C-alpha cells in the first residue's frame, strides 16, 4: 500500500476538520506515519497554511487577536488519533476479515496518538481547540437503497450507480439518515479515545459539548478561567441571547461538572475560581433582564426553568447553578456576589456599581431560594465548606501584597 503523504492527510482530513467539508477517513494511520509526517511538513506549506488560516478564522470569534499558529507534531498526532477513531466506525472495520485483535491494535494506536501531554499554554490550548472545535458536530450520511428485490446500506459512502439505475422500473428508493456524535464517537470502541482526546482540549469542552460526550473535568480546564479573554469568551458562548431553556443548557452542564468536582479533592483555589465563574454566569442572566419594564418583577427565566411542574425536565446541574450564589453567601460571601454589584448599600450607588443589576440580582436570588428551597442551598453550602476554608483574620494585621 502506498504511503500517504502529509499533504494528502492535511488536505483531505485536517482542513475539513477545521473548516468544514468532506472529511475523508481511509486506512488507519500508524504512529510511524505521524513521525514521518512531522518531517514531511516542510514540503506541505500550501496545505499547512490553509489549515492554519482556517484555525485563525475559528479563533477570530474567541479572541480579539488570534495568535500565530503553526501545526506541529502533537496536533498532527491528535488529528491522526481522531482519524483512527473514525476508522473504527468505518464499514471496512466492521468486516469479518478485521479481527477483534486488529481492532484492539487500532484502538491502542489511536489512544497512543491522542495521549499527548496536557497543556496549559494559552496558544497551544487555542491551537488544539481550533483543530478540534467541530468534534461534537461531525456527522455522517448513511444511505439506505431499497429496490424491488432487496436493500443495501451505505455508511458514509455513495451508493453504487448500478444499484440506483432504472429507478422507476426497479422501484428504487433512497433514504438518507444523518448520524452524529452519538453513533460515531460515543460507541464503546471510540469513547475512551474521545475522552482522552477531549482532555487535551479543555477549551473545546468548555465552549461546546454533546449530551453523549464525556463530562468535563474542571481540574483540567480551570486554568482557562484565569485568562480574562478566554473566560469571557466561554461565558458569553454559554449564555447566548436565546429562549430560557436554551440559555441554561451550557451553564447547567458546567455546574454539573462542578458538582462532580466537589466530590473529588480539588485545590481550593480551583474551587473558588469555578464557583466565581458560575456566579458570573448567574450575573449574566440578570444582565439579560435589565430591559424588563418592572425592575422588581419575577424573573421569567427562573420561572420557566425552575418551575415545579418542569422539575423532571431540568438539566443536571441546574439546581446547583442557581443555588450556588445563596450557598456561597453562607460560606464565603466575598465570592457570592459578582464584582460591581453592591447589595444593601444605602444612599446613592457608588460610581462603577450597577444599581439596576443589583436589583435584578436580589430578585433572582430571592426567587431561586423560593423555588429551590433553603434545604437545597444549605446542603450545597455544607459541601462547599469541605473545600473552602475562610481564614479568620485579625483586623489589626497588615497584609503585604506581592510586588511581582
Amino acid at each position: 500500500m502506498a504511503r500517504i503523504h502529509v499533504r494528502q492527510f492535511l488536505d483531505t482530513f485536517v482542513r475539513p476538520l477545521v473548516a468544514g467539508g468532506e472529511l475523508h477517513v481511509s486506512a488507519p494511520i500508524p504512529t510511524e506515519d505521524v513521525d514521518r509526517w512531522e518531517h514531511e511538513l516542510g514540503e506541505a506549506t500550501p496545505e499547512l497554511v490553509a489549515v492554519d488560516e482556517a484555525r485563525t478564522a475559528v479563533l477570530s470569534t474567541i479572541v480579539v487577536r488570534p495568535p500565530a499558529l503553526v501545526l506541529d507534531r502533537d496536533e498532527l498526532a491528535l488529528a491522526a488519533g481522531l482519524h483512527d477513531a473514525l476508522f473504527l466506525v468505518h464499514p471496512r472495520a466492521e468486516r469479518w476479515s478485521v479481527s477483534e485483535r486488529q481492532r484492539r491494535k487500532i484502538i491502542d494506536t489511536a489512544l497512543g496518538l491522542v495521549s499527548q501531554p496536557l497543556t496549559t499554554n494559552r496558544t497551544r490550548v487555542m491551537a488544539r481547540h481550533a483543530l478540534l472545535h467541530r468534534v461534537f458536530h461531525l456527522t455522517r450520511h448513511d444511505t439506505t437503497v431499497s429496490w424491488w428485490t432487496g436493500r443495501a446500506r451505505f455508511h458514509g459512502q455513495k451508493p453504487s450507480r448500478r444499484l440506483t439505475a432504472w429507478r422507476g422500473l426497479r422501484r428504487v428508493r433512497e433514504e438518507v439518515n444523518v448520524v452524529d456524535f452519538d453513533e460515531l464517537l460515543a460507541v464503546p470502541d471510540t469513547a475512551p479515545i474521545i475522552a482522552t482526546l477531549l482532555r487535551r482540549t479543555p477549551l473545546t469542552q468548555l465552549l461546546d459539548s454533546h449530551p453523549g460526550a464525556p463530562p468535563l473535568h474542571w481540574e483540567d480546564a480551570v486554568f482557562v478561567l484565569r485568562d480574562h479573554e478566554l473566560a469571557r469568551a466561554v461565558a458569553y458562548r454559554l449564555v447566548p441571547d436565546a429562549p430560557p431553556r436554551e440559555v441554561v443548557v451550557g451553564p447547567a452542564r458546567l455546574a454539573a461538572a462542578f458538582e462532580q468536582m466537589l466530590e473529588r479533592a480539588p485545590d481550593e483555589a480551583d474551587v473558588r475560581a469555578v464557583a466565581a465563574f458560575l456566579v458570573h454566569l448567574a450575573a449574566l442572566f440578570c444582565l439579560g433582564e435589565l430591559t424588563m419594564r418592572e425592575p422588581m418583577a419575577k424573573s421569567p427565566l427562573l420561572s420557566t426553568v425552575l418551575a415545579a411542574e418542569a422539575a423532571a425536565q431540568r438539566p443536571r446541574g441546574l439546581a446547583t447553578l442557581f443555588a450556588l450564589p445563596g450557598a456561597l453567601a453562607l460560606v464565603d460571601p466575598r465570592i457570592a456576589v459578582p464584582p460591581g454589584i453592591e447589595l444593601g448599600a444605602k444612599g446613592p450607588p457608588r460610581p462603577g456599581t450597577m444599581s439596576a443589576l443589583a436589583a435584578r440580582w436580589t430578585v433572582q436570588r430571592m426567587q431561586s431560594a423560593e423555588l429551590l428551597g433553603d434545604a437545597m442551598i444549605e446542603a450545597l453550602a455544607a459541601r462547599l465548606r469541605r473545600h473552602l476554608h475562610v481564614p479568620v483574620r485579625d483586623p489589626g494585621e497588615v497584609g503585604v501584597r506581592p510586588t511581582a
Partner: protein
Amino acid sequence: MALEHVAQGQTRFFTPGVAPDPRGILLGRSCLMTFPTLEGAVSWLRLYSSEASLDELMAGLSITKARTALGSREIVIIVPAVSSYASDRAARLARLVGGAIYTGTAKHFVKYRDDRSPYGYDAVDIGAMPQNADFMVHGDEFAQAYAREGDLPFARLLFRLSIRKLPGGERLGPDDRGELYLAVAHGLADGIIRYLWRNRVEAQAGLFDPQSPSAFDDHARDRGYMLIRARNLPERILHLFLGTPGIDVFRPAGASCAVAVGYEHPIDLASCQSVFPPDTFHVFWPGDRVDALPGPLALSDIADLTRVDLHLDRPREAAPHGGGAAEPIGVELRLAAAMGPPRRVVATLIPLEHGTRLKRILFALPPVSLRGHRVAVTDRGILVIGSENLDVIPLGQLLCELTPGLLVPLGMDVVPRVSPEVLARALGHGAGLVTVFTPDDRPFQIAEGSFATLERRALAKLEPERAGVEDYSVVASEDAQVINDAVGRFALWGFPDAPDRKLLPSGDK
C-alpha cells in the same frame, strides 16, 4: 314586622312578586325608592344619569307624590329592576342622598339587599293592605302603606329644572370645541357667516323659529335666529363669540338638545335622550328658557351662503394661458445645529480607524447587551444601528432618526427644514434603504440587506492594529574600564632630569 335574610339558593319567598336573579339576589320587577323631599329625588336622578344611562330605566320610570296614613308626604321613584347590577347602583345612590330602596312587583315592596344580607330580605309577615293604600313597603322595623297623591312626569321635571352656571365652564378644551352651536341674531348672521368662512371654520347654518304652544303668541317669529353648527371652533373665536351680544354659544348634549356654554343641566341630558321627541331639537338657554326647534336640524354649508357679487352686464371672457410643468426649485441641503429637543440616538457611525476599538468593546460585551444591534461596514465607516441602549458603544458620531431609515448627526438638523417625507423623496430614500447624513455634508445610502447582527462573528476578520515600536532612548554609554596593555621595552630619552630635592632643607639657608 320582621324581615328574614334570604339564603343562598333560596327560591321560595313570602313576599309576592319576587324571585332570585341569576346571582341569587331577591329581585322584583321594580325598585321603589322613597325620598323625603323632591330635592332628594332630583339628586338621585342627577347622580344616576352621570353614572349610567337613564334611558334604560325610562320605560318604567315614574315619579310619584305619595302620602302615608299619618299624612306625611314623600317622593317615590319607581324604576324597572333591569338587573341586580343596575339595582345595586340605584341602591347605593339612593342611600347616598338619604333615600331608601325596596324591590317588588305590584303592591308589596321589600327592602333591597345591603351588606348585612347580601341576597336580600324577605318579608315573613305580609298582612292585608290598609284601605286607600296603593302600595306598601316592608323595612327592617316597619311596614309603611302609601297612597298616591299625584304623578310628576320625568319630562316635565326635566324642563322645570334650571340650568346652572359652571365656574370656569366657558373654557373649553379642543374636544369640547369639536361641535358647537351658535344662535346668531338675524342682523349678525351675514357677518358671522363671512367671518367663519374667512377663518376656514367648517360650519352649517339654518334659520329657525322656536315652536310656540300658543296660537296667540305673535312674537314667536321675532324670537327666531340663525343656528350655526360649527366644528372645531378655534378658542379665540369662541371667546369672541361669548363676549358678543346677539351671539349665544351652545354645546350639544346628546343628539336632540344643546345647553348654553358655561352652563350645565342638573341631569345629564345625554343619558335621557328618549325624553326628547325625535322631531324636536331643544335648546336650553340661560334664564330658564328652553326652545324646541324642529328636528332633526336641517342645516346648509356656510360656504354656499357667502355673499355673491353678480355683474350680469359685464360678462367675463376666460383668458387662455399657456401651461407647463412647474420649474423645479433647487435648494442645497446642509446640516445645521438643531433647535428642537434632542432626538433619540439610534445609530452611530464609527470611523474605520476606530474599528479595532469597536472590536475590543464587542468582544468584552455579553451578547444580551448587544441584543437588537445591527452593523454594516462601509468605506465611509462602520454603521451600527441599535434598537436601544446604544450607549454601550461609546464610539463614533451618534446619529438620530428624522424618519425611518433617515439618519442625521445628533444635535443637527437638515436645512431647509422640509418635512421628512419631502426630504426622503428628494433623496430617493425609501423602504429598504438607510440614508446617513454625515457632518461633512456627504450623505450616503446603504441597503438594509447589508446589515448583519452585531456579534463577534460580524467583525471577526477585522485585524487589530499592531503598534510599531520606535526607539527614542539615548544609547547608554559604556562604563570606563582601564585595560593595561602589554608594554615592551622603551626608552626615556628627552625626559628632563628631576631636581635634586632633599627631604630636609640645608642648614645654611
